């Protein structure tokens, strides 16, 4: 989810301040993690090559993180060598996580970043064993069916469509919250909050029959009811992200 370090408003709507705004934004991405311990397995690079050839465009230029947990040692030269060999497969080793101070120093020495260790249960990044399927929103092995809700979503309820779209065919009350990794479709009045693409999918959209939402958000870019133009309130709309801006368009 993209996060504006100043406050979570779209850059275009940030209030002008007397200080020059920082040219930096926070962001988070899903990334593949390679466990250094795996290199000890037989024919590591052969197996990695085989995996890549299953979905070449998916892996082309992909950033990779090296997990140092459970290993010791490794000089700057070792990291440089690993970087080079992964570059031959058109993979970009960008950083390391875990490991001791010596290993991290060596990594920094060859221009690798130090990443905080994420738990495997974190939804945004998952440690991936190269011998198993990669986990990334854009190319899942089998698409998950959308989550369908056909009863009113009452105030105080929260629905989360994990890894898929959310379809609601009954009214969504003020005080209710819809979340989806994919898009959100409400074939009824939307009076609550709708947050699509919560794991970072900027292509997610929100659709509804009657816009009266308290808050709309796509991949962390949000807008509250007060900031939504009169012209689209109460109308059937489509909401999508264009750059850093939420675009709300009527569909009639």
């Amino acid at each position, binding site marked *: 989810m993209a996060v504006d370090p100043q406050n979570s408003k779209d850059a275009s709507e940030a209030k002008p301040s007397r200080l020059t705004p920082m040219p930096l934004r926070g962001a988070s991405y899903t990334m593949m993690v390679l466990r250094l311990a795996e290199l000890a397995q037989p024919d590591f690079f052969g197996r990695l090559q085989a995996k890549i050839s299953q979905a070449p465009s998916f892996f082309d230029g992909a950033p990779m993180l090296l997990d140092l947990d459970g290993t010791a040692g490794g000089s700057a030269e070792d990291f440089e060598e690993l970087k080079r060999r992964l570059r031959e497969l058109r993979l970009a080793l960008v950083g390391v996580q875990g490991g001791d101070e010596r290993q991290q120093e060596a990594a920094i020495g060859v221009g690798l970043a130090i990443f905080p260790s994420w738990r495997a249960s974190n939804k945004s990044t998952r440690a991936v064993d190269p011998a198993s399927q990669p986990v990334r929103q854009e190319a899942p092995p089998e698409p998950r069916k959308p989550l369908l809700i056909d*009863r*009113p979503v*009452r*105030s*105080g*309820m929260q629905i989360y469509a994990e890894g898929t779209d959310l379809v609601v065919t*009954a*009214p969504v*009350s*003020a*005080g*209710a919250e819809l979340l989806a990794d994919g898009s959100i479709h409400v074939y009824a*009045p939307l*009076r609550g909050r709708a947050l699509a693409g919560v794991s970072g999918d900027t292509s997610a959209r929100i659709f509804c029959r009657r816009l009266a939402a308290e808050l709309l958000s796509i991949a962390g870019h949000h807008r509250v009811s007060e900031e939504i133009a009169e012209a689209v309130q109460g109308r059937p709309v489509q909401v999508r992200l264009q750059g850093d801006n939420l675009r709300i368009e009527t569909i009639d």
Partner: protein
Amino acid sequence: MAKIIVMTSGKGGVGKTTSSAAFAVGLAARGHRTAIVDFDVGLRNLDIVMGCERRVVYDLVNVLNGEATLRQALIRDKRMENLSILAASQTKDKEALELDAVGKLLDDLRKDFDYIVCDSPAGIEKGALAALYYADEAIIVTNPEVSSVRDSDRILGILSSKSHRAEKGEDPVKEHLLVTRYDPARVEQGEMLSVEDVQDILAIKLLGVIPESQAVLRASNIGQPVILDQGTTPAQAYEDAVGRFLGETIEQRFVKAARRSFFARLMGRPA
């Protein structure tokens, strides 16, 4: 099979106790054996509205704790022979409201009564949850006002997820909308939500519309449920609501502002 009806709202002060009393009397008047239970432990007022506050010996918590039997605690209404009241405790704590004990009490009541009306306290905490947990049907009392509608929506969400029926995957609790304190003149002036507005947001079936009336205050002051104040608009509206609950088709009478006749306006008299 006895039916458990919960009169609930989320919001406080919208007319749950008034409506519980009126409904229970209405059902009893039609020959159904009816019990009414006050779940507002610590802030009881059903006994006042029913006019039996000077006859309370044992209460709901006494029965739940096994300190008294149901027979000892139930108070026979002096006006309706089919009606009995179980008052709440004024001094005890809500902690006594364990769902298992409540379930057992309601099972006991089911043996002797056709309808059990549970008067819920306001809120969504223990008392309100205990009142709605075993309900077969729910009457959602709502004022035509945004906070009340929002709270009613919340309680509907709780009914569909935290009731016994919801947890066991049985048929859902049947939901009815009762709009209270309705003033058609203010609706026409745009000061008050209309019944259609409320229905649009809550999306449940309308049971009745009870007009705002001074008769309600009079009724609670003298301890006589307003449905017995014949001729008043809330009495008529509650009668209609009970009829609809029992399956009759009755047109809504109190949704439009009463039109004053030409002569009435001329003479300065109300319609």
